[in-house]
């Protein structure tokens, strides 16, 4: 794969045939994808859902020693207001001296809509450089400059000559795609073009090379894996995955989240790139293989014991460590079984509905099944090939409902009313809806909690028992706060507003 000569990556509707509107069962959604008939669907009623610009912030906001210039009208990128505290806190888990989240908005107004916004962007770049002296200036480009034809790449090429910070344009105009996960490709596209390059070490410039040092380095690189983290995972998740990979005598480096610019150079010194979630990083990993010949592994996400074991075994096989991995997994499983035993009685037989990213909901369902819970439905933000390996970890879900919808709480609410789960496991933004249905809710992810690896299974079990132990807050709300949908909606087919079209 190499799209780097293009200004922007292809959208995922085209590259992956990803779909955003579907209602059926798990078996049907897999068949529909295989038959190629998933991605030409839309809705006659829709709700605001995020776009590739807002989602690109998920990675961009984590980068250290960086300033972001939201190139667009004054509201674009405002969602970062919700991240000012968390971004700083989580950056400081990696670097205690990390700065907070700093962004500018180029504030395109009516005059710029007519005259172009390139001048304001240049001013903003100069200000960012002078005021903050960052290593990196990221420039996400919103809808308006794309439509008025600002040549951001040309501005960047011109300004790079007078700017010490690396300038990284990210072409993520919201109106270009219905699949907001295209955001990840946009961010990686920018990172690949501007930040990824072989590191230049002083040692490399020696007249007489130090051969012993060279051998050492090659050995170290041959035992180093990059794990492609996602902003929805936590430092405790990273600690757990590091523990497991260290146990196989492998060194671990996490990127891109919470990295600084240099990390993208040293990341090239590794034996394998390991995906946490194909939805996030397949574009990046394919390119690193094409351009730098680094093999990669995209399979399942290490959430749930089966998925974690499968993830570890695939990595171990690459390094010929399969037996070591088997021994590690056996001992981990035994310890986990003992730890879970006290939680099982409270959770056995409880039902759950899961909503959020396709990979994550399926993997989290594995934990729930492990605990004896029953899955009654899924709602995935979109659907594409990356869900398929995760399905293999689940038992008996062929006839379980699967709804493909990016947010779209109106479909969720209708489904939940029919299926009456004991627990909703959901993506952020939907709490309001579940609360007014009186349902206890486990967040699908949370950057301060552990969900991954073997310890993640225990943590999720512990939290579900806690959350189910008292749902009074949501119950009381449900009694007093009405939902905004007409009663007639609940009698209708939940998928009545999905239509087939381009």
């Amino acid at each position, binding site marked *: 794969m190499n799209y780097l000569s293009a200004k922007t990556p292809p959208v995922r509707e085209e590259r992956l045939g990803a779909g955003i509107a579907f209602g059926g069962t798990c078996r049907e959604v897999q068949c529909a994808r295989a038959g190629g008939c998933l991605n030409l669907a839309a809705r006659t009623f829709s709700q*605001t859902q995020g776009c590739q610009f807002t989602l690109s912030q998920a990675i961009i906001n984590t980068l250290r020693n960086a300033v972001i210039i939201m190139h667009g009208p*004054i509201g674009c990128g405002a969602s970062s207001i919700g991240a000012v505290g968390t971004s700083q806190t989580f950056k400081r888990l990696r670097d205690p001296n990390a700065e907070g989240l700093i*962004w500018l908005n180029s*504030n395109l107004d009516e005059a710029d*809509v007519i005259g172009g916004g390139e001048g304001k962007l240049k001013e903003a770049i100069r200000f960012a450089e002078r005021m903050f002296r960052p290593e990196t200036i990221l420039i996400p480009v919103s*809808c308006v400059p794309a*439509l008025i034809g600002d040549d951001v790449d040309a501005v960047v090429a011109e300004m790079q000559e007078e700017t010490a910070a690396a300038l990284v344009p990210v072409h993520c105009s919201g*109106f270009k795609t219905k699949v907001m996960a295209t955001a990840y490709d946009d961010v990686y596209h920018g990172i690949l073009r501007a930040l990824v390059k072989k590191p230049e070490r002083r040692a490399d410039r020696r007249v007489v090379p130090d051969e012993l040092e060279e051998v050492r380095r090659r050995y170290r690189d041959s035992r180093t894996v990059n794990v492609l983290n996602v902003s929805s995972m936590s430092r405790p998740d990273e600690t757990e995955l590091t523990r497991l990979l260290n146990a196989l005598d492998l060194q671990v480096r996490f990127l891109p989240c919470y990295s600084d610019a240099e990390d993208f150079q040293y990341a090239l010194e590794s034996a394998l790139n390991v995906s946490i979630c194909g939805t996030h990083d397949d574009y990046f990993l394919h390119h690193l293989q094409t351009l730098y010949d680094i093999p990669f592994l995209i399979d399942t996400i290490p959430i749930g014991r089966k998925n974690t074991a499968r993830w570890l075994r695939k990595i171990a096989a690459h390094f010929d460590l399969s037996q070591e991995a088997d021994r590690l997994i056996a001992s981990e499983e035994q310890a986990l079984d003992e730890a879970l035993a006290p939680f099982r009685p409270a959770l056995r037989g409880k039902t759950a509905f899961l909503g959020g990213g396709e990979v994550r909901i399926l993997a989290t369902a594995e934990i729930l099944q492990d605990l004896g819970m029953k899955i009654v439905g899924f709602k995935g933000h979109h659907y594409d090939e990356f869900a398929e390996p995760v399905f293999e970890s689940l038992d008996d879900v062929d006839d379980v409902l699967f709804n493909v919808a990016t947010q779209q709480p109106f479909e969720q609410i209708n489904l939940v009313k029919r299926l009456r789960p004991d627990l909703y496991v959901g993506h952020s933004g939907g709490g*309001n809806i579940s609360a007014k249905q009186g349902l206890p809710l486990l967040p699908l992810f949370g950057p301060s909690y552990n969900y991954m690896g073997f310890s993640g299974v225990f943590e999720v079990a512990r939290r579900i028992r806690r959350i189910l132990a008292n749902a009074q807050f949501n119950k009381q709300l449900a009694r007093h706060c009405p939902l905004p949908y007409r009663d*007639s909606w609940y009698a209708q087919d939940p998928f009545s507003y999905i239509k087939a079209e381009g």
Partner: protein
Amino acid sequence: MSKFVDRPRFTCALGGALFTLRALPRTIPIIHASAGCGYNVFSAGSAGAGYLGGGYCGGTSWSSSNVVEREIVFGGQDRLSEQIRSTLDLMDGDLYVVITGCMVEMIGDDVQAVAEAFADEAAPVVAIPTPSFKGNSYEGYDMVLSGLFQRFTRPAAARRDTVNLLGLVPGQDAFYKGNLTEIKRLLTRLGLRVHTFFGEDETLRDLQGAAEAAHTLVLSDVYGVKSAQTLKALHGIPHTVLPLPVGAAQTSGFLRAAADALGVARPVAEAVIQSEETRYYDYLERLADIYNDVDLQRYVVVAGDANYAPAVSRFLADELGWLPALTVVTDFLDEAQTRAIERRFDAWESGLKPLVRFDTDTSSLERYIREAWPPSANERYYDSLSPTVLVGTVFERDLAARFGWPLLTVSFPVTNRVVLQQAYAGYNGGLTLTSDLLTLLVSGR
């Protein structure tokens, strides 16, 4: 010409419009825009207003046409029409308001025409363009409110005892609802009927009946003025601009001005003021010991919007006896607005006046602190700007930490607090502000 902004303390016109509609009872917004616009400003506006949430609809439930490239090329009116139809079928409201994002405005969709086709529906459907390249969230409030006065408010005979209250922007003022409750409580004591439109116990009838008012009070030199002008143009209602009152002195002044504007007899107003001040100082008296025993006087640096920055600074100087060194007003203002705000810093009873600066960039505050107070040159004896309290937004957190100053967040964004019914306006607001500030100082005791 406008410029870039370093960490804007506001969102866009669409954001202001959405949180204004969110504050109206049983009102369903229909966003005609790209798929991310609504979610973006919801994430910003909810967290920034102390976790205001999406209200009756819920942010992620906001109806949105989610236009993509095809509509941008071929026009989005058909898609909007389809979305209005389905929203009416699905969502249960008493008023449906179409508002717009940048893209559909740039391609020239005629949203009025689309909305007019729904004139026979049981509930009104109105369309109000809110392009964000024409303004920020404060202006979005005026766009949507002016539009509603134009398209939803009905002509009516004026009632002498009825007043409209404007100028507190839902969401941009995290404390808008508590503030409206307090001001309305006081005006009611003057014997008035008050439409705040967004306050407790109000319904869409208040908005529909805005033309019954004999007068409009705008509690802001900047926000709500255009909406008041719309009311004047359409229904001949005069308006008076007054500053947001915080604390006893400002609020008593406000009540006198309101009484005069509305023809309430002065003795009536004085009796209310007398009873409110007695109650106020009954509480404040509690602090007479601790304030003086341990010296709770502070220097203060204030950063905030055009409503809070002058009002809070003046309260701190004239009532709490503190020393405002610097006040930065963080909005985009035109020359007339800037002059109006500057005048709010004149003739304080304390005789004090902070350095006043107008700047939208977050990083500028530190520069102005050096301007307001000479920095240390390593003198043996240095008269430092200390002890100091910073009253601002959450964007001041790093600065406060670096200087070791306690921070109270009052102005948007306020992500480090949970705001419910609290108010900073009026007599009760002065008590709450005093309590919040002095709590910072005694929290280690």
